[in-house]
């Protein structure tokens, strides 16, 4: 395992209750592991513990088979971190940002110009980063996190602020890196991203992991067998639903399809968001709860 966390708990100084409590999960090599939860559920706190930004946690957290506390500064040669918000030197150009950043690593790094081109960012742009759009800054932050060719890549809401074209590009890059063997710890509340990319997901609510499984198994567990059919009758659309787990309804569905002009047929599979809602009783987009 690349990451193994057991009974992980962290309380911010002065806080009445822990931000994360008794967390347990693992991430395998080349796995995209989704950490899903609403705002304030403890996703970013967990990422900060794993990236050594927050110290003073309780429990056991091992990365690359070694306690995170025992990792020295060379730990950062092997991980890449992309935070939720761009954190760049805004008065420097993109190439200066990448150039200075790569100098801090003790290992071979990617060429900034090639790295920029990979995510459709302008090469040789003399403008300071402050003049770039939020989406471009986010892609630059993402690019920077890959410069040292990390074995473990932490991503926090990587498609935030991206247009559909670039969101697809980022999702493709994440999949590509995972296929090359990079483990990805993906923190998000975007279920489309999670569903498409993650090999396994953990649902996190109020600092607790409620479930860990593959998106497919989770959806199958919560599936229903209803089918919604739209037909055109006398130039108006009619809807009809069938429960395919009921043999009578199943036969009725077959007869209905045979006897009518069908416009659309939709299975009523739950989305990952539906599963999240049913499992946790919480919506992903609900506002942060005061602690």
């Amino acid at each position, binding site marked *: 395992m690349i990451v193994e966390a057991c009974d992980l708990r962290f309380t911010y100084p002065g806080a009445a209750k822990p931000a994360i409590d008794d967390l347990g999960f693992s991430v395998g090599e080349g796995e995209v592991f989704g950490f899903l939860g609403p705002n304030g559920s403890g996703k970013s706190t967990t990422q900060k513990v794993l990236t050594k930004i927050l110290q003073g946690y309780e429990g056991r957290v091992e990365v690359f088979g070694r306690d995170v506390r025992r990792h020295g*500064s060379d730990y950062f040669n092997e991980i890449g971190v992309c935070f939720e918000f761009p954190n760049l030197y805004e008065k420097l150009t993109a190439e200066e940002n990448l150039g200075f950043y790569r100098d*801090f690593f003790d290992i071979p790094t990617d060429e900034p110009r090639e790295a920029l081109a990979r995510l459709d960012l302008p090469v040789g742009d003399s403008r300071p980063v402050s003049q770039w759009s939020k989406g471009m800054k986010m892609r630059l932050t993402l690019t920077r996190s890959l410069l040292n060719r990390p074995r473990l890549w932490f991503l926090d809401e990587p498609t935030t602020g991206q247009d559909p074209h670039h969101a697809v590009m980022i999702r493709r890059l994440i999949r590509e890196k995972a296929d090359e063997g990079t483990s990805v710890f993906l923190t998000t509340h975007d279920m489309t991203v999670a569903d498409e990319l993650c090999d396994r997901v953990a649902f996190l609510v109020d600092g607790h992991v409620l479930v860990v499984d593959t998106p497919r198994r989770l959806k199958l567990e919560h599936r229903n067998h209803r089918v919604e059919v739209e037909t055109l009758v006398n130039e108006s659309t009619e809807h009809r639903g069938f429960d395919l787990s009921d043999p009578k309804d199943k036969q009725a569905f077959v007869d209905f399809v045979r006897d009518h002009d069908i416009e659309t047929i939709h299975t009523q599979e739950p989305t990952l968001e539906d599963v999240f809602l049913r499992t946790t009783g919480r919506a992903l987009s609900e506002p942060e709860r005061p602690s």
Partner: protein
Amino acid sequence: MIHRLVRATRLFLQVQYRSGFVHVYFGLALFTILVVRLFVPASWRSFLVPALFLGEYGTMGVFMVAAQSYLARNERSSLALAVTPLRSIERVAAMVLASGVLAVAAGLLVFAGIMGIDPRVLWLTLPLLATTVLSGSVGLILASRYSEFTRFLMGAVPAVTFFSLPFLSFFDLVPRYTFAWLPWDAALYSFANLVSETPQLSTYVLLVTQLLVFAAIALYGAVRSEVLD
């Protein structure tokens, strides 16, 4: 460690350059030279220069490094450096050293501009650098306590006033060693020793050592209080 410290210092120098800090340091240096040369009699200059140095580079170190820290906090750029092999001591030291490099360069220019080209100017480098590291670290410690720059100013002004108490002994308002326990006393008197007609090497070594010890303690405090997020 040294190569990372040098690289991080280069980064902060570049950021300071783009943020206009370099212009502030050198603009003020030229203004000071002009005012002193035009309005201060030559016989007063050796008395005035130490106070001027501490007033400018000691005080400015507190505010400029704190301003840099608030800038980094706004951009969240410190967080980006926290996930590189750069250690926190290297990050903080580089930030104060970058200000130190500017203060030393501007300070040497002011000294040469007022006192003329003199070999003593080179002896000024170490106390000036140590003073800026000390003041910059104090600035970072204070900045870690306030979330906004305006609130920081409210806290920093009394602190700087307190640190400036050695001026009272320097201007003979209280006995010489009354405030010798304050770090800026060493800075002030090391500058005074250098511009005096008979500089003493032993005094220089003693005061600069004292200053370096204070700077190291303040730097340690700044590392401990570093705000990343």
